[in-house]
């Protein structure tokens, strides 16, 4: 079970109800719950979208698209019903923030879904959780049932004449389904393969209707933003990066955990102050800053602010906010191999560059790892990764290629030394563990 953590530098907006029993609807109401949605009904869609735009909130799933703008793209008039789809298929390695939201504040997800529905003129929302999160699905199901019992969901919610329904849905194990179009396929009872875009979901989405898809953290922010005002929320962060976000700091730190920090907060301070520094007083070697798909930063590249733009300038991404910290004992060759093994396992096989590229990078790195590599292998890995970039329907191909390129470019010397028999780091994975493994 997740252990809740705390640090004085945290700014608790989204997490302010964590640890307070807010899964109980009465407690949630006592803590200002379901006020924002009632205000949203009174003020109307334009006010909601303007407030969200003013907040500078950007998608917390990883892509960082401005939420208010996404909602405004949905056509006002549509022959087909419109839908809200909450992406809780949290599967990016290093990411466990939605896990905490579902457990600690499920009603914020429900209220956010309703607000998104009101903004776009939808009457039905789906909250999709990854299959492994069964205990969290049960928490969400109970929260939804409690909201129905109060008359907050269903017909004539809060006695205002507005109707809104929510269906909770479970996945069954598939990283790829976290991609928005694959998520819609899965929800339609199909294999989770991506759709060709355009058309974008805002125009042709779930069941062919206009659909807003947001990450669970993005959605859970909506009620807080409406309550505090868009400008006030924006001010907490940096320019074009409004507010705060949940950062899951894991790996070799003293105090791993999910912390809510203002956007733009120093990565160095996040590691050394908030998470207590490197475990056992060891030296920092590298950081994967936003989930496994983000290019690695070396130890001397961590003086950077944690927002979408600053991380982009630093040649990496803010991604899902999952900060994975590697100490000096880690072999980058092993870490790169374990990373690509994951993407190879999860590639849905739809696009050839991704299906074949991940497989060949994994095979090549496996040979390097086993001691049979040549320097040409490093070039081949880079060549394969470069040729996957931008050549697939969905971002999984990029998600596999980007970290691979980061590892071989920034740690090329370590790969070369490894091939020559000078292996850095303490090995974790044996050849036996790789053969016949689960990935």
């Amino acid at each position, binding site marked *: *079970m*997740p*252990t809740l953590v705390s640090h004085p530098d945290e700014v608790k907006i989204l997490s302010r109800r964590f640890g307070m029993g807010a899964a109980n609807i009465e407690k949630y109401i006592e803590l200002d719950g379901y006020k924002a949605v009632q205000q949203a009904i009174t003020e109307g869609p334009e006010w909601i979208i303007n407030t969200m735009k003013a907040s500078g909130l950007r998608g917390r799933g990883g892509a960082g698209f401005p939420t208010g703008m996404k909602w405004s793209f949905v056509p006002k008039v549509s022959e087909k*019903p419109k839908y809200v789809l909450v992406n809780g298929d*949290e*599967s*990016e*390695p*290093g*990411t*466990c923030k*939605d*896990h905490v939201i579902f457990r600690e504040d499920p009603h914020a997800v429900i209220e956010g879904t309703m607000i998104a529905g009101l903004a776009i003129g939808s009457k039905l929302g789906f909250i999709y959780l990854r*299959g*492994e*999160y*069964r*205990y969290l699905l*049960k928490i969400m199901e109970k929260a939804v049932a409690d909201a129905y019992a109060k008359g907050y969901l269903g017909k004539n919610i809060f006695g205002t004449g507005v109707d809104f329904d929510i*269906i909770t*849905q*479970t*996945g*069954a*194990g*598939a*990283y790829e389904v976290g991609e928005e179009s694959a998520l819609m396929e*899965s*929800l*339609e*009872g*199909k*294999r*989770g393969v991506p759709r060709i875009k355009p058309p974008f979901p805002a125009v042709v989405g779930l*069941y062919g209707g206009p659909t807003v898809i947001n990450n669970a953290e993005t959605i859970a922010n909506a009620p807080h933003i409406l309550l505090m005002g868009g400008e006030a929320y924006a001010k907490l962060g940096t320019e074009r990066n409004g507010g705060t976000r949940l950062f*899951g*700091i*894991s*790996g*070799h730190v003293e105090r*791993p955990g*999910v912390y809510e920090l203002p956007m733009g907060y120093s990565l160095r301070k996040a590691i050394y102050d908030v998470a207590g520094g490197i475990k056992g007083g060891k030296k920092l070697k590298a950081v*994967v800053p936003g989930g*496994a798909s983000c290019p690695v930063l070396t130890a001397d590249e961590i003086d950077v602010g944690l927002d979408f733009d600053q991380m982009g300038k630093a040649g990496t991404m803010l991604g899902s906010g*999952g900060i*994975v*910290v590697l100490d000096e004992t*880690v072999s980058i060759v092993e*870490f790169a191999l*374990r990373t690509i093994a*994951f993407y190879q396992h*999860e590639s*849905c096989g739809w696009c050839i560059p991704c299906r074949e590229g991940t497989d060949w990078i994994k095979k090549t790195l496996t040979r390097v790892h086993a001691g049979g590599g040549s320097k040409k292998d490093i070039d081949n890995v880079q060549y394969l990764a470069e040729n996957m970039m931008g050549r697939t329907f969905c971002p999984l191909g990029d998600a596999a290629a980007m970290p691979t390129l980061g590892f071989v470019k920034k740690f090329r010397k370590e790969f070369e030394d490894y091939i020559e028999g000078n292996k850095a780091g303490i090995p*974790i*994975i044996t050849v036996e*563990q790789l053969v*016949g*493994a*689960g*990935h």
Partner: protein
Amino acid sequence: MSTVANTIFSPELAARFDKLVTIYPLKRSALVPMLLYAQDEIGYVSDEVVREIAQRIDILELDVRNVLSYYSMLRTKPAGKYNVQVCTNISCMLRGGYEILDHCKHKLGIGHKEVTKDGVFSLEEVECIGACCWAPAMQVNYDFHDDLTPEKVDVVFQMYRDGQGKDEK
């Protein structure tokens, strides 16, 4: 009464399925959850499960199998009563995930996707389960166990052997 005559599921699950196919704009949206819930009850997705779910959703068995083969949690062979799923993805790997996996292999005497002779446990190496900040972590069926050490794993196994483990479904 189930809408399907001679259902292979318990009355509770059959009733749940009767309802599940009615709540979505499209019946087929019930497919993935149904497969998982059926597996929870039967132990795996058997030919009979495929047949009945195809009938309930009114699609071809082939369509069901097509979806079934995509999702990693769905299996077509029985697992142990308690399916131990150890994460070795990056955050867990850094904090001893492989050590935990090896310990489980040794302790249970089985490898990846194998079942103990008594059928009590099965073991799987899995990808990220969303417990990165509490690594290393594993799931026994749907129940999370985190901040693991080999000693803690032993306690967890004994708990399940003694019938004291949570079996969340």
